[in-house]
């Protein structure tokens, strides 16, 4: 392998845009996302429900997007743009080089086919195993993802497994052919914390052993904090903030990131603590705001924000990138907040109220 390939990032995504054309207009689900991912590293993606995380992953994988879709930009995998490859070239990559764990396991498992056939077919196709070898490999895979009694489980239909078992079957299938890039879209939502811990350990072992890179989409900020190298925060199809995970959690600068942190329920909160939610709804992606996408809900919003969208730029730490005119913690942000609060802007009032800690009831909104 030539040097320049070995040193270049495994995945380099530049200005990716994905649009769905529907009768009422164009849904701009991903609106210019760029990032790079090196071998063996993990990128965490968090963001508002509907912000384009799944569409972004599927656009790069070129999977299940339908016929009414347009994708532009580039996504170079190992130096070659996957967006221009033919369907048959993509089929070569799927499974063996790039694999994906889908958000809802039932959408990738065939409900009418026993688990065994779904796992072994994949193994036979990609690893050239005969049937009995494939069956043994399937048993080993299910055991590895902590499914009890794998022999019996292989004879089950997907609906006969629990939600978390289905999710683990999908993880097993994705790992089977030792991909060098794994997209894991909410891979542990149906797992209890002890099994989740084991599955994440299994993934990090794969990463250490084979330099597998991973894009981990998750809403669990505990998982992001503990298991990723870099974190990208998405909002309405764009990147709001993108930084090494440690610096992001130490210093959240985007108002949306800050709002997310404020909404996390912790086990240390008393039961029935009123949780802080962001007021309002995310923008309509057919006709998104011209200025900052978060401006209709941002407690720090100023006139400038509504007129012009902030670019994603490096701040003090060059690895920390931010798309916001007045970062959280800056004097300008404080002034804007006080002004908005005085004017009775609902999103400012909500933040003000939600941060008033009451000793009996906790945070009260």
């Amino acid at each position, binding site marked *: 392998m030539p040097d320049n390939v070995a040193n270049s990032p495994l995945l380099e995504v530049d200005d990716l845009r994905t649009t769905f054309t*529907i009768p*009422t207009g164009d849904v701009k689900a991903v609106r210019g996302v760029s990032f790079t991912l090196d071998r063996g590293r993990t990128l965490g993606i*968090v*963001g508002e*429900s*509907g*912000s384009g*995380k799944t569409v972004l992953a599927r656009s790069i994988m070129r999977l299940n997007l339908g016929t009414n879709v347009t994708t532009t930009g580039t996504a170079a995998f190992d130096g070659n743009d996957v967006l221009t490859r033919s369907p048959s070239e993509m089929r070569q990559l799927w499974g063996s080089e790039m694999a994906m764990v889908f*958000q*809802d*396991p*039932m*959408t990738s498992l065939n409900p009418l086919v026993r688990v065994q056939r779904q796992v072994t077919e994949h193994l036979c196709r990609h690893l050239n195993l005969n049937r009995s070898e494939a069956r043994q490999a399937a048993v080993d895979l299910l055991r590895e993802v902590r499914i*009890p*009694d794998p022999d*019996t489980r292989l*004879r089950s239909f997907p609906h*006969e497994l*629990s*939600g*978390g*078992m*289905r999710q683990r079957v999908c993880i097993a299938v994705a790992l089977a052919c030792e991909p060098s890039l794994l997209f894991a*879209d*909410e891979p542990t*939502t*149906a*797992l*209890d*914390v*002890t*099994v*989740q*811990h*084991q599955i*994440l*350990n*299994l993934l990090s*072992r794969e990463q250490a052993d084979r330099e597998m890179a991973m894009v981990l989409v998750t*809403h*669990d900020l*505990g998982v992001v*904090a*503990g298991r990723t190298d870099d974190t990208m925060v998405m909002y309405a199809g764009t990147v709001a903030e993108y930084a090494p995970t*440690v610096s992001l*959690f130490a210093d959240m600068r985007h108002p949306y990131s800050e709002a*997310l942190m404020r*909404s996390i*329920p*912790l*086990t240390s*909160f008393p*039961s*029935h603590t*009123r*949780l*802080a*939610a*962001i007021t309002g709804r995310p923008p309509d992606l*057919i006709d998104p705001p011209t200025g900052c996408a978060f401006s209709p809900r941002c407690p720090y919003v100023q006139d400038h924000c509504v007129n012009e969208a902030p670019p994603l730029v490096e701040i003090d730490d060059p690895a920390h990138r931010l798309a916001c005119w007045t970062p959280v913690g800056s004097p300008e942000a404080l002034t804007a907040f006080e002004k908005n609060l005085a004017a009775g802007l609902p999103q400012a009032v909500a933040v003000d109220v939600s941060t008033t800690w009451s000793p009996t009831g906790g945070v009260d909104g």
Partner: protein
Amino acid sequence: MAGTGKAHLRPGDDVLVTVEDLVVEFPVGRGRTVKAVSGISFDIRSGETLGLVGESGCGKSTSGRAIIQLPRPTSGSVTFRGVDLADLSDEEIRQRRTHIQMIFQDPISSLNPRRTVGDIVAEPLRVWGPSDASEQEAIVDRMLDSVGVDPDTARDKRPHEFSGGQCQRISIARSLVMLTNRGNLHRSRRRSRSSSRSRGRGRGRLLICDEPVSSLDVSVQAQILNLLEDLKAGYGLTMMFIAHDLAVVKNISDRVAVMYLGKLCEVADPDTLYAEAAHPYTDLLLGSVPEPDPTVEIDEGLIEDGELPSPSNPPSGCRFRTRCERVTDLCSSEEPQMRAVGDDHFVACHHPLAAVAG
């Protein structure tokens, strides 16, 4: 008699649903069965939220589905408003849809891909709601709006055009449309003659939520949890809330039950449970919650191997004994029974972490 006991059940008229000795087994071929739920009992008072947590595959969804008799339990009783649902015909169960709703796990695949979102959410109203179409539409719009989905853009789209979390909210809206529709009370009574028997014990409607917020970002999750709390207060909604996120369960619940391999381990109010877990499995769970702080060390090396206990051939005695650090001989020979360790705090363990009361 094997069974984890019923010391935690509460007598009284304010109990809406009582599940006793519930057993659910599935045949898995070659004469073997999976014992998904092996004799559990629990109750939920009117207006109360019972949180249910436990290992993946331990039988939480099966327990929730057993309440709505889907499928019918192998044995045990499910008493709802004084009537054992197991005695009712399928049609009589169906008529209780205005009183019991379930939000299923796997949001995307549980929505009909061929229907529009407007239709999906309005569907229960077509049978049970107000007859006026514009009134129905207003209810649908209000419900979509309260789960944070824009009714104007969503109404004519189909499920695959939505994100995972949007689908999850649509399925929440569908269930809530049914349960918060005051107009249906009268009509459903008229339809169901047998409901006259059901008066007298426990009032209100039951919402069984199976991982209802697992696909939502924390802000939308907060919005939905707040909405459920408001509906609970406004409509006296009673809930069973199944989830893996222990902070979410603590937040929403009035009482929490912990399950392991088809059995109940521990029951308590959330503040007590999280502060003084008495069952070793509860303690293990609480100790494994990942914290939103990247500087906290995690043990990435830990990968347990060896056979896991299986629900088709569970360990004798205490089912947690193959993984428990406090295990003794007693644990394999005798099944622990539920007993009180404090005020409204019950545990099924021979050697609990908290001293046993009285």
